[in-house]
């Protein structure tokens, strides 16, 4: 019987998008059955058009080309710059884009589940989500996670 991987994706930032899609696509390649449950800000990862960002603000561990004091990081455009820099670096190092990894997940049959409660909470328009996703609640996740070999909260 195939191993099972259950992931909760709760982050909607560029850096937060990598672990769930990267591990899910790799797990499928290794023969796992995979479900990702998207909740809170993680729901942003289901939008057709991804406009994910990364912010150095409140993230003192983010490597920057020059040290930028927190008070300066609120300046408009700095988040845009940090995102542009991160995307450029990902490309230079031959890392797949989030879109690419998500496409592989969809093509290889990863089950993408939107948390219904948080969809309602934030008034997400499901028409903006990619095709082929389902929705569910805590019991839906736990039913699968209870039999999973690996469970991750990201």
């Amino acid at each position, binding site marked *: 019987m195939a191993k099972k991987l259950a992931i909760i994706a709760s982050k909607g930032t560029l850096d937060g998008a990598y672990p769930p899609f*990267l591990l899910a*696509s*790799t797990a499928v*390649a*290794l*023969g796992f059955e995979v479900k990702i449950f998207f909740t809170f800000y993680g729901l942003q990862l289901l939008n057709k058009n991804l406009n994910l960002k990364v912010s150095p603000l409140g993230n003192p561990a983010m490597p920057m080309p020059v040290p930028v004091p927190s008070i300066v990081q609120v300046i408009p455009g700095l988040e845009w710059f940090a995102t542009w820099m991160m995307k450029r670096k990902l490309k230079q*190092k*031959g*890392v*797949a884009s989030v879109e690419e990894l998500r496409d*592989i997940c969809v093509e290889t049959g990863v089950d993408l589940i939107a948390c219904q409660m948080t969809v309602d909470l934030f008034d997400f328009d499901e028409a903006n989500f990619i095709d082929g996703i389902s929705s569910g609640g805590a019991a839906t996740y736990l039913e699968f996670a209870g039999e999973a070999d690996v469970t991750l909260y990201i």
Partner: protein
Amino acid sequence: MSDFDKELDTSGLNCPLPVLKARKALSEMAIGEKLHLIVTDAGANQDIPAFSKMTGNPLIETFEKEDKLHFIIEKGAE
């Protein structure tokens, strides 16, 4: 180096793309055929043997040449 039926060069690509592309290539091959996988991602030294073991596609040969890692993987029975 062992004979092979198909070559896949993933030079420049980083984790997890070499594994994902190897899986795709193997899925299009017949049982017993051999894939020559070329990787520059240094983590492949651990990742490709793990992939081989978990998917039942035996790793026939591994070597390093001109800063690139080479793997010969045989397509196993499903």
